[in-house]
């Protein structure tokens, strides 16, 4: 009996120690990334006016994010874009873009992208399903995302395309896609910090 008990104690200790060590290792390795480094992140897009590329960006956005490289499929993001920060072309174009035929920035000051489900498609690559809402219109959008750590930060890059007319961007005469292309390639570069 006695010897049995003595035998058990070290086993229990070992188990505890192992559990403790694993905890230390995993917590130091699997850092959670939960805030956006706005200064380093970028949302840019390209439009085509009569065959000429015109690139622009949204300078102001924010959001809630949660990413753990150990469990990438459990990641979540809710990005909110300030439409007033639209920047492309000249003043005239900028004003027009915020007007009612385009983003209608007064009625719809924010656009958003909210993730719903995430699938790993390979090393450091994900398929992100979510909903993009612009000008009050919510449309499901699948985005292929690549990520990689850099120092203490995690970098995400995604290229996808939206169709402006899906969101009612460009009403009236502007619906003419020969003047302004319907396809708008978007590039998102997101840099996350550990909390």
């Amino acid at each position, binding site marked *: 009996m006695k010897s049995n008990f003595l035998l058990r104690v070290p086993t229990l200790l070992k188990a505890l120690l192992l559990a403790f060590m694993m905890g230390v290792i995993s917590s130091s390795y699997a850092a959670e990334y939960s805030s956006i480094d706005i200064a380093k992140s970028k949302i840019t897009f390209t439009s085509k006016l*009569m065959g000429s*590329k015109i690139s622009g960006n949204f300078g102001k956005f924010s959001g809630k994010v949660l990413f753990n490289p150990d469990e990438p499929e459990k990641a979540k993001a809710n990005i909110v874009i300030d439409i007033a920060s639209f920047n*492309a072309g000249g*003043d005239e174009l900028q004003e027009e873009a915020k007007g009612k035929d385009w983003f209608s920035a007064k009625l719809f000051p924010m656009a958003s992208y909210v993730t719903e489900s995430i699938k790993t498609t390979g090393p450091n690559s994900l398929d992100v399903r979510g909903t993009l809402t612009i000008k009050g219109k919510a449309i499901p959008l699948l985005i292929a995302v690549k990520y990689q750590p850099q120092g203490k930060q995690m970098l995400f890059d995604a290229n996808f395309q939206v169709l402006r007319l899906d969101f009612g961007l460009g009403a009236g005469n*502007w619906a*003419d896609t020969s003047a*302004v292309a319907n396809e708008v390639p978007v590039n998102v570069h997101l840099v996350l910090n550990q909390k």
Partner: protein
Amino acid sequence: MSKVRYTSIAIILHWVMALLIFVTWSIAIAIDDMPLSPARITGLSWHKWLGVTIFFLVILRLLWRAIHPAPPLKVQMPAWQEMVMQLTHFTLYLLMVAIPVIGWLMSSAKGYTVNYFGLFELPDLVDKDKALGDQLKLIHELLANGLMVLVGLHILAALKHQFIDKDGLLGRMTFGGSINEK
């Protein structure tokens, strides 16, 4: 006396460019006050496409002129008139090069890449810079209007030679027709 005229290539380039310059300038005048709209973007694109065409053609024309000098002037005119003529022609060439280039610079500065009939894009010559874009716009317009004044002078002089002096000067830049041949 054998008729002296510019080479066929030079004559074709002259008249094609004359038409292009007139159309390009007219488009600019037509869309100048338009608010931003698909029609304005379409007009501006055609203005730029034709402007780029003029730029390509004037380079071709200058190269051609360099190896095919103008035919000797066989029309009698006072020395000052010949000087004004040379100066006008030189300035016309200069403006035909300068105006498209300044337009291209202006478009770059305003943040719009110039393309050619949607086929390919021309490189941006300068970074986006609003103040520079506005200045270039003024210069582009000033030179274009200056060009139209010179073109007017050029046409009036040609008409004077054709209908008042009847010296057949216009035959230097036209095909056929030896009506006014001396």
